[in-house]
């Protein structure tokens, strides 16, 4: 599903964000990517979504070979990935419903499909009753659930969550984790970048630890990196 093969990324300011990283994530897996700030975690998500290109090595995501694919394929790649952000990134002038339907409208989805799909994903994250609310009327946890609903709207094969619990308190964080776990159990591959040691320890999933751009460990279990 996701393959990084000897991937190196050096930014213009000569900082090596990722060095010879190799890992393979299978379809349906739930993987944590952990490491200290500036370790290269965000670079991994940016490489997966073609926001950045590697300097060497190759990356495959689903059917896409990111190093060889033409630029016009990028939107198709991104439609196959749902992204959840730490800061939610909701549009404050749109309702919960509209925030989710927006993601479908802008990818040219038929209105009938949108009308069926949006209530489905809102009920999946438990926000059916808040469809008409605006983001600033919601708690942080609810806002992040809207973010997840939006990421799921276009039925992606992969969900990338970049510190999804970073701005939330502990109990709310667990609500989010149970939603992500549920999504994963339904067959979606989930890649979650996080700092939250307690969550990683508790979930007992595969953990890829990165430091200074190097993959330090890749194993099942807890937060092995301190």
């Amino acid at each position, binding site marked *: 599903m996701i393959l990084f093969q000897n991937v190196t990324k050096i930014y213009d300011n000569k900082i090596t964000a990722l060095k010879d990283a190799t890992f393979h994530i299978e379809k349906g897996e739930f993987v944590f990517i952990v490491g200290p700030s500036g370790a290269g975690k965000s670079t991994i998500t940016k490489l997966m979504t073609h926001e950045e290109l590697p300097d060497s090595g190759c990356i495959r995501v689903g059917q896409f070979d990111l190093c060889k694919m033409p630029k016009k394929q*990028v939107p198709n790649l991104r439609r196959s990935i749902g992204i959840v952000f730490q800061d939610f990134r909701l549009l404050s002038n749109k309702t919960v419903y509209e925030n989710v339907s927006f993601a479908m*409208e802008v990818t040219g989805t038929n209105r009938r499909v949108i009308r069926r799909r949006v209530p489905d994903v809102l009920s999946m994250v438990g926000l059916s009753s808040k469809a008409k609310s605006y983001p600033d009327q919601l708690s942080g946890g609810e806002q992040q659930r809207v973010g997840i609903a*939006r990421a799921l*709207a276009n039925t992606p094969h992969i969900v990338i969550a970049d510190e999804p619990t970073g701005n939330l308190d502990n109990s709310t964080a667990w609500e989010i984790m149970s939603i992500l776990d549920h999504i994963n159990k339904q067959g979606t591959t989930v890649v979650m970048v996080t700092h939250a040691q307690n969550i990683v320890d508790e979930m007992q999933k595969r953990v890829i630890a990165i430091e200074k751009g190097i993959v330090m460990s890749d194993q099942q279990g807890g937060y092995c990196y301190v």
Partner: protein
Amino acid sequence: MFNSVRYYTSQAFHNVFRNKLMVFISISTLMFCLLLLGLAIVFGVNLRYISSQLESQFELYAFVKLDYNEQQAIAVEPKIRQIDGIQTIKFATKEDALDSLKDMYDNSDAFSGLDEDNPLQYSYKITLTNIRDAGRVEQELKKVDGISDVVNRTDILNGITSFTSIAGNVSLIGMLVFAFIAVFIISNTIKLALMSRRREIEIMKSVGATNWFIRSPFIIEGVIVGFLGAVLSFIPTYFGYRAVLNWWTNFFGIFRFVPLSDISTGLLFVFLASGILIGSLGSVMSVRKYLRT
């Protein structure tokens, strides 16, 4: 497809309303540009129209020496005919000359005593096949034995054509300057629209909206600005030209201007085309710069 077009257009109008002041400034600059373009076109079109009228009306007058009698004056004609480039020759007697003088002054009594002792000259009215030969023909006429004087009216024509062409060129240069300013201001207007929608654009990119989908509303916004600018400058140009035409035909009448109906459709078309071109150019410049990835 239909959904997308509806989305682009509604977003574009939304941007226009959200950004009223900048849109107003953009449209005003564009109007300056198009009004000058209109002036240049009106001058250019009329320049050709008027000179073709004057060319067809253009005549040289060759006056026969005062001491020649009618027979002698008529005898000059074959000599004139030998000159190249002459289309028609019309002989006018002293009496003809006096009649036309009387006509010009509404049969005023001032000329009543002149019938018996006519001081005017016999003359030839000469038209040319090509107005460019006027100078040469004039010189050759002067050499013809029996001709005392030649009157050549090309200087008036030259005056009118040089005035209209200078006026046309000045407005054309002004138009180019304002077109440049308009593109710059429109691109800034679109830049503001892009900035105020940065977050939406970010989300659109992350969920896989195509670049065209993201760009289109902003390009359409530029087109709307261009369209409004074109329509708003066409209105004063149309009525202004109509007013000039009325004033001209009331007071003068040496020559006619191009009729309004002949020029208005073309002018509207040129305005719309240039307005939309300038508007979309401005927005494409911004969009290219700010939505590169």
